[in-house]
């Protein structure tokens, strides 16, 4: 078995329910998490999380505040490493490779697993430079023209190009909140990630800007695997293929979104999505 065959065999060796029906199918797992425990110093924040995240789908994490969904999201590209005294146990496989194994290049990992945060955080630079930054520091481009092409492509993928193409050299701070968030998405896409993690990407936006982000998420799944944390259950329902419900650091239920919002397996999930608590 050559290396590619070995990789594929790991990735398709999972069986689960298809997102649109209850048929059992093989699932191409992009991310495979097993028995993950996570600690902030002595406080345990995640308990024994096991989950398969298929490639090119949108996965939503929902749950009340403090349930661990953002913490879990950040374990997927080791963003929690930046917080002192944190510790992760268990395995997180991306394409079959454990990202917590010794010798993992965390910078390279975060390039593959991009991230967009709740509050848009453009650099105090021009629109062009915001997107070009990651391409430059990673040395992805071959020439100035190539750099410009990559910036345009990322802005197009983030559905922002038409709105900014005539003012690429103006400050990113001149953009609206929704545009700034899409700029941050473009910045994440510019370094050609495989997975995009989104931590409440639309929670600070008005309904119209939120709708644009949601449409963008659905569009992006054609190329990327998207994991999105959201407080907005309707948003999870609208955009995701699968939904994971977290509570007190535990994964209560993970199912196709259609099932989750019409007939969840767990009473706790039903109580949460129908607004009985949380």
């Amino acid at each position, binding site marked *: 078995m050559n290396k590619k065959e070995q990789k594929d065999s790991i990735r398709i060796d999972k069986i689960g329910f298809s997102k649109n029906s209850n048929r059992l199918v093989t699932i191409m797992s992009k991310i495979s998490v097993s028995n993950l425990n996570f600690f902030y110093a002595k406080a345990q924040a995640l308990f024994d999380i096991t989950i398969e995240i298929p490639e090119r789908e949108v996965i939503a994490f929902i749950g009340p505040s403090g349930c661990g969904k953002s913490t879990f999201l950040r374990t997927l590209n080791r963003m929690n490493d930046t917080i002192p005294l944190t510790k992760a146990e268990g395995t997180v496989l991306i394409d079959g490779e454990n990202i917590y194994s010794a010798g993992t290049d965390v910078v390279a990992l975060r390039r593959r697993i991009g991230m967009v945060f709740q509050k848009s955080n453009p650099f105090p630079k021009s629109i062009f430079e915001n997107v070009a930054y990651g391409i430059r520091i990673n040395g992805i481009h071959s020439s100035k023209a190539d750099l410009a092409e990559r910036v345009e492509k990322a802005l197009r993928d983030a559905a922002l190009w038409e709105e900014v193409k005539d003012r690429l050299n103006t400050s990113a701070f001149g953009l609206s909140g929704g545009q700034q968030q899409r700029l941050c998405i473009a910045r994440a896409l510019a370094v050609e990630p495989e997975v995009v993690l989104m931590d409440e990407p639309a929670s600070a936006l008005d309904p119209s800007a939120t709708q644009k982000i949601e449409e963008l998420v659905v569009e992006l799944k054609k190329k990327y695997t998207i994991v999105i944390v959201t407080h907005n259950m*309707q948003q999870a329902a609208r955009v995701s293929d699968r939904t994971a419900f977290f509570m007190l650091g535990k994964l209560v239920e993970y199912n196709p979104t259609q099932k989750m919002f019409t007939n969840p397996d767990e009473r706790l999930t039903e109580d949460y999505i129908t607004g009985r608590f949380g």
Partner: protein
Amino acid sequence: MEHRIIDSQLGVLRDKILLLGGATEAAVTRAMESLTRRDSELARRVLDEDRIINQMELDIDRMSIEILALQQPAAHDLRFVISVAKITPILERIADHATNIAEAALILNDGPEIKSFVDFPIMAKTVSEMLRASLDAFTNEDSRISREVIKRDKEIDESYHRVFNDLLEIMVDDPSLTTGAAHLLFVAKHLERIGDYVKDICELNVYLREAVFIKHSPRT
């Protein structure tokens, strides 16, 4: 991006109900043809294809629920999904009446022909026209046409009464035809019921377009 996430799903739902409408319309037409042309093969086809129509109904039910649960449609989108969810079982019931007519045809085609089918062809033609018009009006969200179709239900009722009286006369004139005529009475009733269902579809078309309920109101 010009399309909302919900748009593609509403488009699929629209396609599904139009297919169901087409299948139902074909079932009614074939059922009546199987009777008037004494074509039992055609009657059996109507019975066979009812299973497909039942599956289509379940499929649309599932999709309507999914859109309501996941996309939270509002305003016209909401009226559209609700209208589809309400029209779908109506179409399925119309198809059930078509199968009942086909079953009657299988019995009648084995017996002596009752020559005087009286107003049946006219009644069947009116019902088919109304059904097609109601589905076209749904597609085009045309409440004017829908209101006109509703008024035509009177034609069906009048035909029904004529057919009823004619069949009673046949029974009295030739008691050997009583069994066949009794089956035809049921066929007439099925057509009359289909007319009522078409009216229900048209009322939902008006709701879809104008957001008003005209059901149970004296004026349409």
